């Protein structure tokens, strides 16, 4: 008897066009997929340990440095957690200004991903740089949009990268009405550009693929808003919890091949956070133009094709522009830029929807306002198991491809999730002792 043994193994040493540094290992034995591992080898980030002993006012500035792409998300989740610990609620107009700031970050992040990281896959280019040569008008339009996102973050957050105007309790200062009216004019043009981007993305040839059946979609939910700042965490499997209940339903585990912790649902099964999940659970709260465009372009809440997440990002960009226009046009300078926050010995949790999905923070502080413990659960670490299982599912249907083709489709599939490895690789057990 002859036994035909065929082994295929490919390794993507460094995944390009993802935020941070990671790799991918796929092993196929006897024609069957044996192993898929998303390998994250950027040095662990020690931010949680680094925060211990710091004053409770510092996390918005320190955690903003975890990621240059989504600093606002870190600031918003940190502020909410620390305000909860101190028993403070911000005024409605401060919350609205936070919502505007978050719109800026979503626009910046989504536009960068759509144009320079993911569109090249669909249009057959090895990089955003190569694509820019042939699709200059589209890339220029993307740069205009990213610039308006930067502008929002600069106006509200104090500067375009790593904003400095955010504080626990609100902002150090609020922008003038005149500044936001000027911004509103620019945002109207940006909304037109964002609609054109979504129509352009909808023309891409999307591979026919669906998430594995068991993957739950998890996102924040707000009574009236598409969630950047949500109130409850819901899922396609019936979950509906408050922010303090998160640890009772989710955990993080260390795996050998990654310096990022892997998220897991204690009830079992994979779960996915991010645009696809947000849209599935909140499409009814999209702003009117974004909602109409999603319907026109054939997106519905039942969408489970991760390759179409690029289209969801484009729709969310339209939504962010539309919400930003509304806020900027109706803006009046808040009565106060921040509410007073006095520390007390307590713990508090906060969450928000980073561009890549749910970002949960928890802080314990003492009576002097020193941080005793911090925990940060970013979206990419939550998504990592689901990404690996989706890749396994995809590869299982793609065995007919040669290695180069299979490698290309796997890289494209990883980029469906816009993983931010820089965010994911912080480390839970680090301790820093200060004398």
């Amino acid at each position, binding site marked *: 008897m002859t036994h035909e043994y065929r082994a295929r193994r490919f390794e993507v040493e*460094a*995944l*390009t*066009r*993802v*935020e*941070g*540094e990671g790799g991918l290992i796929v092993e196929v034995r006897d024609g069957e997929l044996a192993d898929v591992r998303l390998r994250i080898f*950027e*040095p662990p*980030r*020690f*931010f949680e340990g*680094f925060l211990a002993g710091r004053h409770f006012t510092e996390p918005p500035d*320190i955690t903003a*440095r975890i990621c*240059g*792409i989504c600093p606002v998300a870190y600031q918003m989740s940190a502020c909410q957690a620390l305000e909860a610990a101190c028993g403070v609620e911000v005024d409605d107009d401060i919350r609205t200004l936070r919502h505007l700031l978050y719109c800026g970050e979503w626009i910046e992040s989504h536009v*960068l991903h759509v144009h*320079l990281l993911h569109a090249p896959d669909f249009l057959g280019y090895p990089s*955003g*740089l190569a694509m*820019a*040569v042939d699709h*200059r008008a589209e*890339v*220029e339009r993307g*740069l205009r949009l*990213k*610039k308006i996102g*930067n502008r929002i973050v600069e106006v509200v957050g104090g*500067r*375009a*990268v*790593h904003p400095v105007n955010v504080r626990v309790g609100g902002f150090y200062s609020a922008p003038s009405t005149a500044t936001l009216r000027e911004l509103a004019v620019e945002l109207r043009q940006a909304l037109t550009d964002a609609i054109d981007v979504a129509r352009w993305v909808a023309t891409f040839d999307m591979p026919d693929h669906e998430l594995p059946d068991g993957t739950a979609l998890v996102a924040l939910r707000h009574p009236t808003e598409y969630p950047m700042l949500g109130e409850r965490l819901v899922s396609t499997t019936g979950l509906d919890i408050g922010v303090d209940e998160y640890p009772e339903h989710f955990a993080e585990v260390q795996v050998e091949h990654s310096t990022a912790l892997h998220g897991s649902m204690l009830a079992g099964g994979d779960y996915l956070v991010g645009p696809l999940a947000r849209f599935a659970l909140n499409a009814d709260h999209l702003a009117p133009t974004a909602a109409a465009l999603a319907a026109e372009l054939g997106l519905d809440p039942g969408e489970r094709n991760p390759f179409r997440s690029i289209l969801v990002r484009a729709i969310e960009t339209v939504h962010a522009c539309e919400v930003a226009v509304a806020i900027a046009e109706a803006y009046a300078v808040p009565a106060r830029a921040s509410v007073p926050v006095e520390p007390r010995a307590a713990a508090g949790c906060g969450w928000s929807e980073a561009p890549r999905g749910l970002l949960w923070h928890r802080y314990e502080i003492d009576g002097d306002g020193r941080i005793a413990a911090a925990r940060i659960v970013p979206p990419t670490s939550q998504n990592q198991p689901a990404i690996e299982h989706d890749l396994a599912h995809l590869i299982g249907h793609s065995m007919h491809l040669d290695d180069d083709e299979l490698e290309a489709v796997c890289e494209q599939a990883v980029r469906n999730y816009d993983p931010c490895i*820089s965010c994911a690789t912080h480390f839970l057990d680090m301790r820093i002792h200060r004398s």
Partner: protein
Amino acid sequence: MTTAPVVTVIAVGNPYRSDDAVGAAVLAEVAARLGDETRVRLAELDGEPVGIVQAWEGSSIVWIVDATSSDRPTGSLQELDARELGVSDPSWRGVGGGHALGLREAVEFAGALDRLPAELRVLGIEGETFDHGEGLTPTVAEAVSVAAARLVAAIRPHLERAH
């Protein structure tokens, strides 16, 4: 009437990665030496290429300040035309970001879109450690003033010509 800044100085790095913070430290000293000079834009960025290209928009003279990691002596300064990044000396290839994309990609991207300034220079300061934590190592900290003085000396003639 406001006009676009003549010169943009961009510091790249992370203040929580030891000597990676040297660019920001140099930028702070340049700011102190220039006072309220409105014709110079100062920006502190994390190295994302599109952000770098957008930060220098409107300026004809651009300087990037960043930490380097090579076999050069700690605290030593290296200067070159950014268009030569990764060409003359491969040790420069990773400059401008710990991510897969960096300053070299920013330069190529800007070139493809005709967004390169007339002059684009890089000043690198050789770091000793890039571990997590705050604070520069002593030799790198000593280089901050030297680097800032060099930058200001390079910038001033352009400002005088622009009068």
